[in-house]
């Protein structure tokens, strides 16, 4: 397995995702002899994981079961250990499309942070592209390098430990795209421009505050970038349930005009209406 290539069976050294149920999963480093504790019991890597097909159900010692999933950048984003605030797949999707990323693209990114976006970018540019990612925090940079190694993608990424605003990305005139997720992106626009190829390069900056966006747009314009667009994307997830609503008793269309309104038909022909329910699938915004 790797994050850029599907494998069929679980192998020693893989990173796999243990799925326990709705919104409940965690990553696990598969290793001979290791055990993993779950609320359903123990998973023994050597017997329960290694050699099994991804997507299999694994029964744990207490009797409950879990599914073992092949890692993807999206699953990783939902389960990675946070060292910083991360980008989620909704934003990652639109960034990827707007930067026109595809296999072979050369991308520059700063800051690396917890590597959420990095994994997605690497997946998209593989097998012939490359990600140059810059992180000014030494331990985070090192942790990122370690994770890329474990995930089998180190040949597709270069992590540089420096301040992008002072020293840029470490490359010139080759990037198809640059992405910035830093507190002061306007300070890095000049460096972004020199990393980008001469014409047709695309840049994207992510900022939580509109003031940052304003400053960055101005800097972009001053540096000669055109067709500057600002977007916000929101994800709305629906909760789907099947509910049964009671049917109100509207009485019977009477055939005889008896005034008492007593029901003269035998009970077996008519289900008691207050016990009747209609089933519908419904969705509710989460």
């Amino acid at each position, binding site marked *: 397995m790797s994050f850029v290539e599907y494998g069929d069976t679980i192998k020693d050294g893989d990173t796999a995702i243990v*799925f326990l149920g709705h919104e409940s999963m965690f990553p696990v480093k598969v290793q001979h002899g290791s055990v993993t504790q779950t609320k359903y019991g123990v998973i023994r890597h050597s017997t329960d994981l290694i050699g099994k097909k991804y997507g299999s159900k694994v029964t744990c010692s207490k009797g409950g079961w879990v599914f073992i999933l092949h890692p993807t950048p999206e699953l990783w984003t939902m389960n990675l250990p946070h060292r910083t605030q991360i980008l989620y797949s909704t934003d990652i999707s639109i960034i990827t*499309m707007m930067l026109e990323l595809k296999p072979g693209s050369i991308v520059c990114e700063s800051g690396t942070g917890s590597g959420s976006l990095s994994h997605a970018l690497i997946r998209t540019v593989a097998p012939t592209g490359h990600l140059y990612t810059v992180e000014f925090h030494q331990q985070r940079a090192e942790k990122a390098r370690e994770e890329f190694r474990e995930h089998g993608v180190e040949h597709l990424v270069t992590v540089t430990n420096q301040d992008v605003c002072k020293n840029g990305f470490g490359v010139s005139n080759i990037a198809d795209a640059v992405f910035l997720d830093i507190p002061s992106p306007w300070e890095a626009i000049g460096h972004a421009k020199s990393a980008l190829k001469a014409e047709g390069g695309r840049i994207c900056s992510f900022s939580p505050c509109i003031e940052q966006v304003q400053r960055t747009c101005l800097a972009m314009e001053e540096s000669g970038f055109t067709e500057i667009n600002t977007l916000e994307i929101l994800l709305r997830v629906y909760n789907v349930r099947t509910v049964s609503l009671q049917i109100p008793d509207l009485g019977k269309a009477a055939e005889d005009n008896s005034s008492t309104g007593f029901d003269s038909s035998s009970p077996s022909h008519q289900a008691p209406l207050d016990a009747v329910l209609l089933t519908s699938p419904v969705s509710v915004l989460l």
Partner: protein
Amino acid sequence: MKNVCLTTRNLLSVTLKSCVSPTDLELDFTNLYPFPLETKEAGTDNRNIVDDGKSQKLTHDDIKALKDKGIKGQEIVQQLIENSTTFRDKTEFAQDKYIKKKKKKYEAVITIVKPSTRILSTMYYAREPGKINHLRYDTLAQMLTLGNIHAGNKMIVMETCAGLVLGAVMERMGGYGSIIQMYPGGGPVRAATSCFGFPKPFFDNLHEFPLSKVQSLLSGTFSTETLPADPEENALGEEESNGLSEEKQTALQETGEEPAAEAPMEINPTEEQDTMDISAEDVEFKETKEKENKENVREKHIKQWERRKKLKEAAALLREKNADGLIVASKFHPTPLLLSLLEFVAPSRPFVVYCQYKEPLLECYTKLRERGGVINLKLSETWLRNYQVLPDRSHPKLTMSGGGGYLLSGITVVLEKGKSDSSNSEALKMEEPSSKRCKLQDLPC
């Protein structure tokens, strides 16, 4: 032949018949920010500005005359400003806005760019949303990511979006891996796909398979005996027949439908002669015509044989039941598509279904839960908002919600027959107690 897109406001797609180099065209790269004005005169607000339609002193004909004289757009805009009585009373922002508007109208700025999913999907959503089932570009972006579309995948794509979704998937796969496109009717529509301008090798691993054969494939009764009617073949046949009667046409198709020999078949030459008058002069003409027809017939049979071969290849790929993902974006009800096509997908792989409406996905969700073999089901929608960001003038422009369609996504797992895959304690939470439920048809009237 290169595919390019003309962008900036008016999005058109154009195929250039020859290579274009930057020096061939006069391109104006001026961005749309206003050039500095000679006079910096401006007002403070609009309390005294009356919009009576009489502020502009140049008439329609005057402007036309200027245009005909051939003067540049920049000059026309300058003229309009000078001949506007209210311009100097406008605020600076209003002047900016006015100039931008006039520039847009009179200065045609064309930027030539390479086609991409970003451009084509925004184009289609803006101009022909009906052709793509109102799939908004941010929704498409989600599909590509949720589906983990990347180089090396073996993807199954079922779409009726003119080939836009297929093109987007192909772009993200970069020519690596393989795609099997499922199609309704006679053949897949790839109008939008050709706009991407992919190099030919990208199409080497693009297969197609008719939906009408899915059931037979799943039940093991699949054969290549009856192909869906190929519209292209029929059209070709009509062109060739010219003076020949339709008898020959049907005769050809009948012979085509017979059990496929590995070698193309010869048609019985006597059938051709029945339908034509023979005269001395015509004999020679007829002979060459016969030769031509035999050639065409042979070509047609070769084509048919090739089609059968490709169909068998696609069927073989599907039969392996190890696809790395499934993308569905069509006008059809998603439930039957998913329930059948998921059979071809390997376990622990993502799938994404797009639907213009939410309700069919509610049903799909419920049916998938019953089927089992899927986890992490999520029904979602994205809202998109774009902003105008200018100094002291930043505000949102347009919010797009609801009109971009909905997505149902999930991950496959090993399907165990007869068991539900709901997580251990979850199964009970799904529905209300069943004893009192009753369908609408069962109600006494």
